């Protein structure tokens, strides 16, 4: 029995690709939950159009008739492989298998029927699935199909998104994290409160998805975004039978150097639920994952090694190695301590048709992610760990109404979404941790934080009580580290961290969208959407102090948008797209009219509005034998700023400086213009290439650095501007034994502002170009699929390999702009290149013993297989992995010993008593303090992902 994970098969050469691609049809609109099938039916001998032929899907309810030109449209087709039947009296019925539909895109078919006077068996043919260029698409996008998601070496969907050209570390074409929009089954979803830090709001497991479409340019009018759209389409249950699969992956077997305590259990099942209604299906997916080291780094817990240190620091390191060898790099491990984590993702989707035209889709997504947060100053703290927990749920209901006419279709969708997302950061209650029920790093229950109930009490009560957060204890470090009392002020080994914060985002979303699809490929789509939020944000940074200050906000932002998208096919060769989007938002924050005067009257932030035209054209280049296509698009793009910018906040930027910024409830849109021009070409029937040039002019970016036009220094405003321009080259090869996707991106992202260092600006009126934080000049991404993953249907094995090589981001924007070093000179302005090779291989083992309907296979999954220690950040003070001597000495000098510490003192540490005479002298103390200060500069977090290898078993039925 073959392993049934790969859904559908491919028969090569069944139909020439170009014959399909030459039929021009309307281009796709991103962010939709369903796709469509467009086609033409002709007589096989005369090539005359066949009028009135019935075209229907055998595995879904869509059915249409061809018009006078033989054209048909099937709308609201679920993504995935479908079987289509074409029938007309006098012709032999034809069944076309494996018609692949992507969400928001048309599947283009050209069919011929053979005239026959007899009632003969239907002819079965296979559709060609691969499309190496898309002459009918005006946008830049990458689709990762569900079957690839299940073959690729990835734990999270965002790892698949990273494979798209122009996406790196969550940055879309040089944009900030959070400038992209995530769309789940048509519903735009984003943690608008702190998207720039957290990205997507809720996570879906890779196995719950039918496909992922990553759009980086040429956005339609339906979505408001600055940098990108990620369209996630979930799976639905098989309407004919129950299917399911379960996977267990673990590194429990691995040697300690590659062991990170990873175990992931994933299961999904779906099938018909006739008792709910005829044709109803249910799909359920669960992912539970635990990690002993939730953020494994290539060099684990490490220290400033001798080969890391700068020349000025070398004498200090040498003296430590000579005088106090036990205190130099006293504690290293392959995994970071206090970094345990786990997550649970649950998803259920119910599809319920009502008759032929109406269907209801409801889904529920649940997330619980929690982990301890490794921080260098807490690495010797074993009684209290800092941790975070997020709990979220999204309920979605969508009502689709579809009517199919002859060569046309209408499709209407009404959608409702409810989301709640809670994030908590604080000190994990040690009593809870001691009694924790779990399996390895996986906790059955949710993390419990010290004083969690207290910090959720009404703020007025908290302020009135004047209490510290219960359970929080002032931090100290007399004992518990290798440096004993010398760690005071450098490490925290007693007491707790002071952080207690939480936030809650709730929103109600409502969308209404309608579209008309014409048989000639033209389409009109329009709709309106609204999001109504309730936000709470709480932060207390010295929670162990009674009456310590706290920041709290509760406000109700809202966004409204309407759009219209029109696509017209001209002369069967070109497509023209015009869209218009209008968007409004208000922060919902009430603020003092004059921030400097607390007695000033309060005002409500006003509504902001913007109008966003989109234009695109695409088609085949004449005279190229239909082998070359082009596309051009222009979009005016905008999005409301992250809601956190409405509030005072400590913002960490790429320079690792946390500067308190003043919130601005009256912020406007972040906006810009986006242009792109792309060409695609068929090199051989199985190799396609494309090149895309783009330029984004960003003229209203949020910044907190400067005073612009009368705003206050340090207040968030939309005063930054910049440009991102680049070239993307892709190659897509669908070879006989393998499939290869590769891309190279050349990019430059530059800002123009007064200064990038904010509050310490000496001359705020000086304008100079500087690299935007995520200016990544070169990026190479490749994915290779072999065996069954590469399309060899009878192969008992499958192999997928992904490789990335990226040049580094600017780690110091002023230095990168040629402005010289801040505190040191001579180091490179950009981070070094990183390269990662991941792979996943599986071998079918046939039928599972004891279960005749089950197939099983074993899998090996490896990350960073080359074991490369990628440097992903450098120190701001030195521009290297090495701290400066001044940094180390300043930290060491903050505390001096006023009297020797005897052996019987609670502060005594044997390791610090270098001569073991029972007394820690002032000199010994200072030596230990220097060692502690050096150890505190632990460069672990400056490294990328560690090498990991996991073994797994997968069972499917």
């Amino acid at each position, binding site marked *: 029995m073959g392993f049934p994970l790969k859904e559908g098969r491919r028969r090569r050469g069944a139909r020439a690709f170009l014959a399909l691609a030459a039929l021009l049809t309307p281009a796709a609109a991103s962010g939709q939950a369903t796709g469509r099938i467009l086609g033409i039916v002709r007589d096989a001998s005369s090539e005359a159009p066949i009028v009135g032929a019935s075209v229907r899907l055998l595995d879904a309810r869509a059915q249409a008739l061809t018009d006078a030109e033989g054209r048909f449209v099937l709308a609201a087709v679920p993504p995935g492989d479908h079987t289509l039947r074409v029938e007309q009296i006098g012709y032999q019925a034809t069944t076309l298998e494996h018609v692949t539909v992507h969400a928001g895109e048309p599947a283009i078919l050209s069919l011929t029927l053979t005239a026959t006077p007899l009632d003969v068996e239907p002819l079965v043919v296979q559709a060609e699935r691969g499309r190496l260029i898309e002459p009918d698409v005006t946008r830049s996008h990458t689709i990762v199909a569900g079957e690839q998601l299940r073959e690729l070496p990835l734990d999270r969907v965002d790892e698949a998104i990273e494979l798209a050209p122009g996406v790196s570390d969550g940055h879309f074409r040089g944009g900030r994290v959070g400038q992209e929009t995530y769309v789940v089954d048509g519903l735009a979803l984003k943690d608008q409160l702190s998207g720039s830090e957290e990205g997507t709001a809720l996570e879906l497991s890779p196995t719950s998805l039918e496909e992922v479409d990553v759009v980086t340019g040429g956005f339609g009018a339906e979505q408001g975004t600055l940098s990108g759209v990620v369209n996630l389409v979930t799976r639905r249950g098989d309407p004919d039978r129950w299917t399911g699969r379960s996977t267990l992956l673990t590194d429990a077997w691995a040697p300690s150097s590659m*062991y990170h305590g990873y175990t992931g259990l994933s299961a999904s099942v779906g099938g018909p639920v006739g008792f709910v209604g005829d044709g109803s299906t249910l799909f359920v997916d669960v992912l539970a994952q635990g990690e002993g080291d939730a953020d494994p780094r290539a060099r684990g817990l490490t220290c400033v090694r001798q080969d890391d240190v700068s020349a000025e620091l070398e004498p200090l390191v040498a003296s430590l190695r000579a005088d106090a060898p036990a205190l130099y790099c006293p504690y290293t491990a392959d995994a970071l*301590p206090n970094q345990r984590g786990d997550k649970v993702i649950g998803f259920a989707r119910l599809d319920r048709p009502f008759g032929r035209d109406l269907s209801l889709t409801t889904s529920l997504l649940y997330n619980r992610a929690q982990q301890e947060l490794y921080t260098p100053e807490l690495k010797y703290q074993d009684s209290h760990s800092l941790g975070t927990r997020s709990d979220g749920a999204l309920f979605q209901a969508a009502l689709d109404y579809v009517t199919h006419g002859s060569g046309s279709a209408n499709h209407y969708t009404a959608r409702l979404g409810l989301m709640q997302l809670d994030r908590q950061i604080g000190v994990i209650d040690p009593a809870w941790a001691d009694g924790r029920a779990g399996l390895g790093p996986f906790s059955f229950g949710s993390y419990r934080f010290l004083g969690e109930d207290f910090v959720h009490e009404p703020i007025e009560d908290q302020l009135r009580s004047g209490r510290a957060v219960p359970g929080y204890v002032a931090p100290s470090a007399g*004992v518990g580290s290798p440096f004993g009392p010398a760690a005071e002020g450098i490490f925290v080994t007693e007491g707790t961290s002071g952080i207690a914060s939480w936030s809650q985002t709730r929103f109600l979303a409502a969308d209404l969208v309608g579209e008309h699809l014409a048989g000639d490929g033209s389409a009109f789509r329009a709709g309106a959407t609204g999001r109504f939020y309730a936000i709470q944000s709480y932060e207390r940074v010295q929670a162990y102090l009674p009456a310590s200050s706290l920041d709290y906000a509760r406000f109700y932002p809202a966004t409204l948008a309407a759009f219209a998208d029109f696509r017209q096919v001209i002369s069967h060769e070109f497509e023209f797209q015009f869209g218009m989007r209008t968007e409004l938002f208000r922060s919902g924050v009430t603020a003092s009219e004059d921030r400097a005067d607390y007695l000033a009257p309060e005002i409500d932030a006003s509504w902001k509005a913007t109008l966003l035209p989109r234009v695109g054209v695409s088609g085949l280049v004449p005279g190229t034998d239909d082998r070359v296509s082009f596309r051009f698009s222009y979009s005016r793009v905008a999005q409301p700023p992250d809601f956190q910018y409405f509030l005072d906040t400590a913002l960490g930027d790429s320079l690792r400086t946390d500067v308190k910024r003043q919130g601005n409830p009256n912020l406007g849109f972040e906006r810009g213009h986006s242009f792109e021009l792309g060409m695609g070409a068929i090199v051989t029937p199985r190799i396609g290439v494309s090149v895309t040039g783009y330029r984004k002019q960003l003229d209203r970016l949020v910044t907190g650095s400067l005073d612009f036009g009368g705003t206050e220094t340090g207040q968030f405003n939309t005063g930054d501007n910049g440009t991102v321009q680049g070239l993307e080259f892709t190659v897509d090869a669908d070879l006989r034994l393998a499939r290869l996707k590769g891309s190279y991106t050349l990019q430059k992202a530059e800002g123009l502002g007064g200064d990038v260092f904010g509050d310490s600006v000496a001359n705020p009126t000086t304008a100079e170009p500087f690299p935007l934080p995520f200016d990544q000049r070169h990026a190479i991404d490749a994915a290779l699929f072999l065996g069954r993953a590469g399309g060899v249907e009878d192969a008992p094995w499958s192999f997928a390999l992904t490789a990335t090589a990226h040049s580094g981001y600017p780690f110091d924007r002023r230095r990168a702009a040629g402005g010289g070093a801040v505190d040191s000179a001579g180091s490179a302005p950009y981070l070094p290149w990183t390269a990662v090779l991941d792979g996943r291989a599986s071998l079918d083992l046939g039928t599972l013993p004891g279960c005749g309907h089950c197939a099983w296979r074993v899998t090996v999954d490896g990350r960073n297989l080359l074991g490369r220690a990628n440097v992903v950040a450098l120190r701001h003070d030195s521009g290297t992995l090495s701290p400066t001597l001044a940094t180390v000495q300043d930290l060491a000098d903050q505390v001096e010993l006023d009297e020797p510490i005897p052996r*019987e003192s609670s502060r005594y540490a044997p390791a610090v008593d270098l001569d073991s005479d029972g007394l820690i002298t002032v000199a010994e103390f200072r030596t230990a303090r220097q060692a502690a200060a050096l150890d505190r500069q632990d460069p672990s977090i400056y490294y990328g992902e560690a090498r990991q290898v996991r073994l797994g078993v997968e069972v499917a039925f």
Partner: protein
Amino acid sequence: MRAASAALVLLGVLSATGCRDVGAAFEPEPREPLVPETLTRVTFQVAADRTPAWTEGGDSIAYVTGHYQPLAAAPAVPLVLSLAGGPAVRLVPGIQGGATAAQRVEMFALAPGDSVVAYVVLSPLRETACQGTAEVTDPVPLVSATVAVRAVDADPPQASDPSITFDLAGYGFEPKAGEPQGGLWLADYLPFQQAYRDQHTSVLRPSFSPDGRRLALSDGQRLVIWEPATGDTTVLGAAGEAVSPAWSPDGQWIAFAQPVRVDSATSDRIYYSEMGAVLCAERRTTYTVDWSVSVVRPDGTGFMSVAPGRDPAWTPDGELVYLDPDGRLHLRTLGAATSTPIPLTAGARAPAVSPDGRTVAFELGFAETTDIWMTPLP
């Protein structure tokens, strides 16, 4: 059935994962245990650590320190240090808090079972006997002492501890015409005062009877038997001038040190203000003393002089360890004609024998830099 086996295999893999830990957290290096192989130093502080006493189990040594950082205001604090490792902790955490944080608590004794402690609060101390001047001179005589008992882990306020207070001899005022302030302030360094002034000897130290019900103590000149539960006191007048009592393990004897005055010297001194005005006059008397160790029955009978020496302590077998005039600790059987010097104890004071009789702890060093040491008994 086979599916169940497969499920069990999966469960086994998960369980194996659950049993494996990702990198152990840092474990601080422990302090090595103190083993009295030869001469072993117990405390290392650059300040005075004095008067060791063993806990009943013999695994810890209690002592008084002249500097304890968490109680910086207190000139003397009783601590207990486990020989197995770890820091010294307060022996009686419930005292020397709040208003009593600056108390000088010395000369403690542990009752059998270690759950009750007797301690002495020496107060008030003055900078000089001569009132009216802020000039700091030599330590002045002790003025009074309060002996109290307390459960070591008790919570009640210190003031509620059963106690007995003595006004100590040696400090006074003698009216005399013609002197400033109408007389002379007396600083009479009686032998017990002088022993305390020179070496902080535990002259007043209490010592529990083996049943823990009574205490033998000294008011500087006489031995007193005090029963805290009833408050009854008995003065053992027959013993004469006696300090540093030690109740024998069998309860039959109380050993003590007897000062024998050999000579004395008296001097008067006048204190002036910075402007030259006469403030007051002080008369100071000091003594030359020979010490001897004696024993007496708890009822005051059976007095017996044992040997020249001081700081007597009992071994579990009923032998005496004391500081011989030769500057070393000696071991002597009661009634024996000779004693055995204990090696490596030159300069030692205030011996205390471990409950197993194998080790003697003592203080060693200069007045302000004394530490606790220990060495095996021969």
